[in-house]
């Protein structure tokens, strides 16, 4: 081993200089090291990620394209140029729900594992990386997994002809990732604040994720719902991401929210979650 036995007190200056030099890379790239570790851990369930990422859209698109869409004889939604196929309508929402599912997977138990069950964050914390970098690294890794899922979806959407615009289909994964983060970053903040897991994540799954999935205009236009249920959609990242995706696919009908408004809601949700989450990471680790 290379611990230098010849080191003496005269090296005090060099201790300082060594420290100043050694921290340059971690200060700059610390978050990427955390992401690297996290992605390596994901390899343990890489099969699930790949099969889920490709299998889920395949099943949905087949099931809805061949089954449900054939059964609906009247179009239920319209784009800029009139009525559109059910598959077109539903595809962007399914893609966004896939990235949100990734968020639900990755920003819950993995966070508690870091703080509590395996104390991985404490190990990282003793290294040069900062709590903020730990939080950022977690997010980078999750964006990686979301990107895989969203792109896989995008490719299948194009192959199935489930979009009105191939060009739009290229951009939709970015919107889906933003939707996933708008849901995921507030969830990250919440998970980071949990000291004892007593089933909170099951509650999130059943009473937040499931209602959002059902009442966000995923399978039918939000306007179909009575007005008192529509606010669920307004606060739902899924609805906003799906609506942007639909506009990219086949344009928006008259009277729809403008794209910038949807994006703004998503950005604000993601930014607030991010700011709060980072603060909680710092508070817990320092």
């Amino acid at each position: 081993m290379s611990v230098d036995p010849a080191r003496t007190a005269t090296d005090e200056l060099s201790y300082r200089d060594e420290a100043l030099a050694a921290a340059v890379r971690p200060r700059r790239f610390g978050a990427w090291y955390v992401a690297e570790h996290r992605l390596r851990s994901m390899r343990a369930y890489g099969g699930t990620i790949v099969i889920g990422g490709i299998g889920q859209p395949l099943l949905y698109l087949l099931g809805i394209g061949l089954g449900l869409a054939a059964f609906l004889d009247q179009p239920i939604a319209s784009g800029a140029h009139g009525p559109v196929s059910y598959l077109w309508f539903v595809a962007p929402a399914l893609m966004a729900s896939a990235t949100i599912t990734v968020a639900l997977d990755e920003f819950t138990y993995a966070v508690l594992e870091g703080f509590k069950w395996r104390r991985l964050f404490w190990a990282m914390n003793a290294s040069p990386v900062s709590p903020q970098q730990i939080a950022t690294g977690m997010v980078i890794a999750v964006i990686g997994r979301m990107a895989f899922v969203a792109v896989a979806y995008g490719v299948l959407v194009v192959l199935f002809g489930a979009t009105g615009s191939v060009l739009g289909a290229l951009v939709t994964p970015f919107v889906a990732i933003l939707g996933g983060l708008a849901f995921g970053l507030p969830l990250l903040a919440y998970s980071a604040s949990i000291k004892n897991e007593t089933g909170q994540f099951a509650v999130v799954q059943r009473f937040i994720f499931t209602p959002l999935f059902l009442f966000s205009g995923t399978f039918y236009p939000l306007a179909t719902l009575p007005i008192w249920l529509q606010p669920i959609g307004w606060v739902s990242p899924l609805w906003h991401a799906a609506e942007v995706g639909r506009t990219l696919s086949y344009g928006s009908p008259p009277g729809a929210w403008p794209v910038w408004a949807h994006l703004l809601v998503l950005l604000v949700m993601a930014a607030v979650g991010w700011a709060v989450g980072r603060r909680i990471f710092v508070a817990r680790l320092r």
Partner: protein
Amino acid sequence: MTPVIQARALTKTYGELVAVDGIDFEVAPGESFGLLGPNGAGKSTSMRMIGAVSQRTSGELTVLGLDPDTHGPEIRSRLGVVPQEDNLDTELTVRDNLIVYGRYFGIPRPVCAARATELLDFAELADKAKVKVDELSGGMKRRLTIARALINEPAVLMLDEPTTGLDPQARHVLWDRLFRLKERGTTLVVTTHYMDEAEQLCDRLVVVDHGRIMAEGSPADLIRTYSTREVLELRFGSTRNAQMAVELADLVDRHEVLPDRVLLYADDGEAVLARVRDRGLDPTTSLVRRSSLEDVFLRLTGRSLIE
């Protein structure tokens, strides 16, 4: 000698609770320095401040010539930290734990891999390289944690209660490894509530209680200053110990009564034992031993280290 760690009136409070109450100490390069004290004495809090993961409330602290408040990443990049609770990544292999951790210091992957090989040899874990951490024994996990802390070739290795929870054999293996590091000139900072560990590993130590330093010196110095050369331990049975202590008190300058035994402090334990027998008293068991840091702690605080 310019110290690698320098603390002056170092204080940490959590609301009303004063965890560390104005302590002063210095650690010289290549020295093996210990903080000895019972659980809750403020040792771990001090370690967290030195490790630049907890801000001091007041006082001065310099680590490697830098202020942890402003140069946390710089300091942490040159420290090796062995925490009290293992936090290895149990889902990765033994070898991958070292490599992944090395990356946090910005060490290129091939360098991490080469060092991992050396460190696995050092930690006597080479044959476990491809095993998942979950399958290691407690002693092996500790050795891996120490190996991990060495991946950045740290200027200072900090160990918080390194052998707590290990069986005696595993402790000795670990001490042997740490002793080798010490011989190579690695600066060690160790907290422990085991006196034998402090005696084994530390060139110099501070005895800490309630966040304050009670005494400072080498283990031998402390024993010389605060205790006698030998201790006579007598057991009369738990109901008679206190009463016997009163009867024997005049034989020595200092005595202590513990629940299970009486301690008589003397430079010649056998001589005192002979005088006890002369008085016709016949203890169930008797033992003459050398004074230890446990006796120093008892003298300084009136309490045992392990309660």
